[in-house]
Each structure stands twice: as C-alpha cells, then as structure tokens.
C-alpha cells in the first residue's frame, strides 16, 4: 500500500476550491445538504449518530463528542448554549485557522446541526483575536447564512431558531481552556473555573453548554451525510475518522496533511517529502508543546489517542513539530517555558510561580552557569505543577521539561559541564539568581 493512500481529504477537500468561502460555491459542493437531512431527523437520533460514529474532540483532549452532547440535560427549562472553541493557540497548532478561512460554512453548518441536536438557540464562536482573516470570512459567512434562512428564526420552516455570534478574543492562550473561555466570553478575565460543576450543566451563564473545537464541529456535517459506518472506515477502532496533521519544522514540505487517524510519523515525513537536506530527526511533539516530546525512536508510533499515550505522550492537536540534530532540546524547552510563563493566568500558585522560576533555572543552564542540582529543581518543580495546577495549561508546561530530561539529559549535562557553548548571554541572566 502506498503512503498516499493514508491521505483522507474530507474536511480539507473544499480548500481546493478558492471560492468555497462563498455560500453559492459551498452549496454546489454538498453544502447545507447535511443541514436539511439533520433537520428532518429527531435531535436524539443525531446525538446517537455522533455517538455511533465514535467522533472524538479535535481540540486536544479527545473526549467522545456524542457523549458530551448527551450530558446536556433536556427539558430542564434552561437555555442551552453551543460554544465553539476557535481560540487556536497551542504552539505548533495551525489547522483551525485555515479551515475557518477557506471553508467557513462547513463550521457554520456543523454549528446549526449541533445546536439543533442539543436544543440550543444561541451559539457562539470564540475565535482567537489575532485570527483576523478567518474572522473576516466567518463573519461574512454568518451574514450569508442568515440571508439564506439557515440562521435566525424558524430555520428552513422547521420552527427551530438559532442566533450565532462570532466573538473575537483579545490575545490570551489560556482562553483555549474551556472554562477560561467561558469566563472570557462572559466579559471577565480568562481564568479557569473550578470543576465540578461542569459546563454540561453550568457552562455559559451557568446554563447547560457544549464547548467543542472547530474541527469537531466541522466534522459533523460529513458524518450526517456519509453516516457513522463510513466515518469509521477511517482511523482506528477507538479513534475514528480523518485527522488534520499539521507538520512544521525541519521537513521538506511543511503543511496540513489530512490523514487517517493512526498514521505514523515515518509516513507523515514521507508525505512531506522527507527531512530537509542535512537534517536528521531528533525530537518532535505529537500534538503541540503541551505534549511530551518524542524522539527518533518513536517514528513508528501510530498517531492515535491510545498509541501515543502508550508511548508516553499525548495526541493533543496533532500539531507535529519536527526538530533535527541541529536543534537543541534544552533551548526549545526554555522557549516553550517562556511561553507558559507569559501565558499563565496567575490564578493558581503552582503554574504562576513554577513557570516563573523554571524559566530562570533554564536561563542559568543555557548561560553556562547551571548546576547538577538545577536538574533536580526542574523535576521537583514540574512534580509540584503537574496535577496540582488549576487547569491543563500548568500540566502542559511540564511536558517538555520532564520529557526532555528523560530523553536528552546529556544535552543538559553538556551545558552544565561546559561541553556546549552557552546559548544565552550574561544579559539574559538578569534576575536568574
């Protein structure tokens, strides 16, 4: 079997049509056919269909989507909300922005179907502030969808009403965490909430709320059209469907590769034309900087939720960042920690203080003044963040620290013992002691 047969262009297919962002072109390419089909079905049957398909969240956690929809209490007299998490910002992740830019109606169609299924009459897309072109296209698409009667009152004569608001964020990675996102959408600082209660019962405005990623919701129309059995012809038994793998770094052709779930890095690199000349694979993230680093030894690990977890990492957002023997895992980790330190919301002590101090320890190591004790300090600090932070951001910050120490301890020792020239100058050391 050729490696090209691992490609499964489903969500990315319309990107080939330059005008697919326009509603007339979208409709010619099966657009809004799923909506008509869904509105003729019972909402509970749609939830059952998504459960049957085995669709799991594309935002990083991989929670079963149908199950999440099923948690929404029905006939409770409260308004229900659908909130789409479009706050794409996990370092390495770049799949949702192109989807919203080149095929915005597929997200809107998914939103209408999902809202109908969970009985929500108000939906929001919380889109990352910096994603201005995607937002431009999305706002235009919403306007077109209202004009065509797909949004608003009495959609397609079914009596179903839905208002959809595109809400731009303002630059805060933490708002990709679903409860921080809800606080931000309520006009507060984006800080995570204590759970329970969960968003399914106390989400937006303390009402039952489903929060789903862009890719998750954009998958829904295809499942409605092609059926659960067809969806499961792609991927693995426990991780169905296609997945957009975002390849960046030291490969010949970085880009978006939508493949069957469970493809290996070896196959992805082959699709991307191999490593860049003169570069040899050294370390990589399977799904963004919050997922523990893997190494060249893991090149044949299947990239689905279970297999990556068995290899000691997390599938995350399938943001596959590929680094070579010319890149330093200690420096890479330092830059990520600078990021987590900057983006820590400050609500909980382990994340706020832990990342602050770890950045300083890294500066000391990288400027040639590290000690053996520093390595213990990093592990100890990570141990005090992981599982003790308020949300996944804190946990994620420790991923590259502990994994790089596991696989590349020698690189650390080379700085400490003076075999590697200091990467940072004295200037960067200010405040490091």
């Amino acid at each position, binding site marked *: 079997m050729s490696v090209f047969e691992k490609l499964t262009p489903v969500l990315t297919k319309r990107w080939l049509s*330059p005008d697919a962002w326009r509603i007339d072109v979208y409709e010619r390419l099966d657009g809004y056919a799923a909506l008509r089909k869904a509105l003729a*079905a019972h909402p509970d049957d749609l939830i059952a269909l998504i459960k049957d398909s085995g669709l799991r969240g594309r935002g990083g956690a991989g929670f079963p989507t149908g199950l999440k929809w099923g948690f929404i209490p029905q006939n409770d007299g409260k308004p229900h909300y659908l909130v789409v998490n479009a706050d794409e910002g996990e*370092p390495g992740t770049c799949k949702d922005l192109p989807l919203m830019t080149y095929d915005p109606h597929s997200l809107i169609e998914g939103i209408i179907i999902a809202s109908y299924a969970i009985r929500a009459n108000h939906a929001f897309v919380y889109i990352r502030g910096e994603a201005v*072109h995607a937002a431009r296209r999305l706002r235009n698409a919403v306007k077109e969808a209202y004009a065509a009667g797909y949004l608003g009152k009495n959609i397609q004569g079914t009596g179903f009403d839905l208002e959809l608001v595109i809400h731009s964020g303002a630059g805060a990675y933490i708002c990709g965490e679903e409860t921080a996102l809800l606080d931000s*959408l309520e006009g507060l600082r984006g800080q995570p909430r204590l759970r329970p209660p969960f968003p399914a019962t106390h989400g937006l405005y303390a009402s039952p709320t489903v929060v789903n990623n862009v890719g998750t919701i954009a998958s829904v129309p295809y499942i409605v059209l092609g059926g659960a059995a067809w969806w499961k012809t792609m991927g693995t038994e426990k991780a169905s469907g296609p997945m957009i793998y975002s390849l960046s770094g030291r490969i010949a052709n970085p880009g978006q590769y939508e493949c069957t779930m469970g493809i290996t890095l070896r196959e992805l690199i082959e699709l991307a034309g191999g490593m860049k000349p003169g570069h040899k694979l050294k370390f990589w993230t399977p799904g963004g900087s919050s997922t523990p680093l893997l190494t060249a030894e893991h090149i044949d690990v299947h990239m689905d939720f279970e297999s990556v977890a068995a290899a000691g990492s997390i599938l995350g957002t399938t943001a596959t960042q590929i680094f070579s023997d010319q890149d330093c895992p200690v420096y890479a980790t330092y830059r990520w920690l600078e990021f987590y330190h900057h983006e820590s*919301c400050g609500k909980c002590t382990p994340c706020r203080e832990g990342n602050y101090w770890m950045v300083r320890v890294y500066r000391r190591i990288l400027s040639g003044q590290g000690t053996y004790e520093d390595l213990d300090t990093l592990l100890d600090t990570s141990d005090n963040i992981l599982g003790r932070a308020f949300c996944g951001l804190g946990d994620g910050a420790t991923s590259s620290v502990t994994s790089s120490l596991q696989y590349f301890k020698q690189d650390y020792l080379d700085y400490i013992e003076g075999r590697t020239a200091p990467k940072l100058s004295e200037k960067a050391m200010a405040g490091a002691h």
Partner: protein
Amino acid sequence: MSASAKRQEFIQVSARAKSQEFSQVTVFSEETYRRAAEIKARYPEGRQRSALLPLLHLVQNEDGQVTPDGVEFCAEQLGITKAQVGAVATFYTMYKRQPTGDYLVSVCTNTMCDVLGGQAIYDALSDHLGVGHQETSADGKITLEHAECLAACDYGPAVTVNYDFVDGLDPESAVGLVDDLSHGKEVVINRGARLCTLKEMALQLAGFADEREGAVGEGPAGEPTLRGVKLAQQHGISPAGFDITTPIPSASGGNK
C-alpha cells in the same frame, strides 16, 4: 443621573484632568456610541457584560490603545466599575496601554519560529527601528512586538502586520517591509486582505464586517495549507464509500 448627564460630567471631569495630567482626552463619537449599542444587542438579555471584549476593541478603534477614557466608556456602557474594566483590559495582550502606530508588526518567537529564524527577524527589526517589545518607531508609524505562536507554524517564521500574514521573510526582507510601511508604499499581504490601519482593524475585532470592496475574498491559500489535499488530488485519492443519501438511523420511529 441620566447617561447623557453622566457623560457630560465625565467630559467636564476629563477636561479638567486634561489640563492637569493627560495629554489627550477622548470624547467618543456618536458613531462609537451607536456601535456600542449594536455590540451589546448581540448578547442575550441581561448578559450584556459579554460585550466587554468587543467594546474594548471598539475604543481602540478611536484611540489606538485603551486609555483611561476608554476604560470609563466601557464601564459606563455596561454599568460596571472602572476597576472591573481595568482588570480585564490589562489581562489581554491585544489591548495596548501605550500609543500604537498605524502598523503593528508581530514576529513569532515561540520555539518553532525562533528555530526557523523568527528571533533573528525580531532582533533585526528591533535594531533597525530602535525599539523594543510593544514600542513604537520614532515616526509613529510602526509598533513592534514579539508574539507567541500565531498558528501558522507551517509557514514559519510567522510575521503579521495588523494580524494579517506576510510570509517568507528573513531579517533583510523584514527590514525592507517596515521601510515600505514607513514610507507608505504598498505592502503585499499573503494570506489576508489588503492592509488597513491598526485602528481600522480594531473595528473588525469589535465584530463589524470588513466593508472594503472585495476584501473578504482576498488572500488565497498558500502552498503549505494545500499540500496534503493537493497530494491526494494528484494521486486520485478520496475516502471510499461516501454516500450522501445514507439514512440517519431512527430510534424514535422518525417522530420529531
């Protein structure tokens, strides 16, 4: 006290403050008041605080930053305190608290873009413009910032001007880009609409359509975006068995 009386008082207080400490006082336009009402109407009844983020973008449309006047405007609009608004405005990096130029140049220096040359671009621009992070060039045209991951890693190093992408830069061409911006020459945006000013962009961030003729359709997808799907097309591959007439199984006997 009515809103307009409060506004009058605010203007008077602001005018007094002007002579004492502020160099500039904003009296927001009628258009901004009308837009603020439109923003608040997007959210469910009684949930108008949700309008705070777009309102803060809106005040940047007039001021290019969130000034004390902008904070007061938002507080007045939503019936909350200035402290509550300030707590939010200072949390998010896109709300600027110093004057900004017409063009915000953001250079990603997160790990991947750093490795691919983003830090070198940032350093070259910083030297050339003589400014640091979130500072504005002497001619008042360009604000520089280093950004965290901009979700364009497949195009790295990622650089944006007023948040739209300019691809394929190195330190030398990046310096050329900011010179062109300073001199009012046309700059090519690769994936986004033609350039507008940062203040104009703030209006879009507040949720208003880009009204420029044809702007929505500009910015075709670049090669990295299309690589996988083009490869599948070249090899004639598409997932088998996709039939849009597949029925949705009904457990409830088809009754709605």
